[in-house]
């Protein structure tokens, strides 16, 4: 009986690494399957309709919106954001720039345009649809967020400082979860985002569709929700802090060909 028991223990021990390998493989298989059946393209189509739809007091569309590559140029624009915009004298990410175009081109008030920036599964937001459409026009283009203008460098440094800055009720920083190798929450691996090799595949696939809740999520939402999870006060949409963090992460991921909008678990 003792010998029999010993055999089982040995088998059990050798089985552990194999099972861990299998789990990782199975997760990858699952991720590939959800990517193949992704409804991301439907969000892009809806976004295109919104982009071309006249809105606001000026009753114009966003087609003349300058995302950094010239008025109305969409190809590769997302891959080069965030960047410094002379007309606004600040660094802007995609959503901040879209908001800028809504207030300047379309003449909408900031309050009206930001009333509902994050949607839900029953009613996605305008920002979500537009982000899907604009980001989709950068597929295959290498990420190259602005990192030469003094204000771009300032945003990068501020983002980096915020990434490691511990505060809030639980004394957490972004690095508390995203600062150590081989950590995960349930099935979700936690990328070490200050390392380029980890930041690259992540930044190249956001914004993204989440199959678990059928929602399209933007980068501003991602930052906002990380702050919620860390129990900080809610950061303002399109604020200096959120733009700085997005700048820091995108600059860290520089050079990776954009292949989003992605599909997440």
């Amino acid at each position, binding site marked *: 009986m003792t010998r029999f028991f010993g055999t089982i223990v040995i088998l059990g021990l050798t089985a552990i690494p194999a099972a861990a390998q299998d789990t990782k493989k199975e997760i990858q298989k699952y991720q590939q399957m959800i990517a193949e*059946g992704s409804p991301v393209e*439907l969000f892009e189509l809806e976004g295109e*309709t919104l982009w071309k739809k006249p809105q606001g007091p000026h009753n114009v569309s966003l087609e003349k919106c300058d995302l950094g590559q010239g008025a109305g140029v969409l190809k590769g624009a997302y891959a080069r954001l965030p960047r410094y915009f002379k007309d606004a004298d600040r660094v802007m990410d995609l959503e901040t720039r879209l908001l800028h175009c809504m207030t300047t081109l379309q003449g909408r008030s900031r309050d009206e345009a930001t009333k509902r920036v994050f949607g839900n599964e029953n009613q996605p937001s305008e920002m979500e649809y537009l982000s899907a459409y604009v980001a989709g026009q950068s597929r295959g283009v290498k990420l190259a967020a602005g990192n030469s203008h003094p204000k771009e460098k300032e945003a990068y440094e501020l983002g980096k400082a915020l990434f490691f800055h511990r505060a809030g009720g639980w004394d957490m920083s972004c690095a508390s979860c995203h600062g150590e190798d081989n950590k995960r929450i349930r099935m979700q691996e936690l990328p070490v985002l200050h390392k380029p090799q980890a930041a690259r595949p992540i930044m190249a696939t956001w914004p993204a569709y989440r199959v678990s809740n059928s929602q399209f999520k933007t980068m501003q939402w991602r930052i906002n929700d990380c702050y919620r999870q860390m129990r900080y006060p809610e950061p303002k949409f399109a604020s200096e802090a959120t733009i700085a963090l997005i700048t820091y992460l995108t600059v860290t991921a520089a050079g990776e060909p954009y292949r989003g909008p992605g599909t997440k678990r």
Partner: protein
Amino acid sequence: MAGPMKMRATAQGGFTEVRVLMTHPMTTAQSGQPLHFIQNVTVKQHGKTVIEAEISQAVSRNPVFSFRLKGGAKGDKIEVSWLDNKGESNTIETAVA
């Protein structure tokens, strides 16, 4: 108003590979909201019905269908349409690439 659909059809080795995306809430009984789901999916190849499917609430929100049809050549017309339990419908047509 039914949301957009998207379809891709490619001819390969005697088959036509079709992938079609549909925008639909696919509301189930569990949600507590009125049932709203696609009931019928029809696929036509060159105007001739080749698939008539009945699906249920078990299918996800914004579903994607992927299937192979026998035969088919470049330029063939493929038409996919759905009809839900509220009588709403949508259709998309594409040429095989």
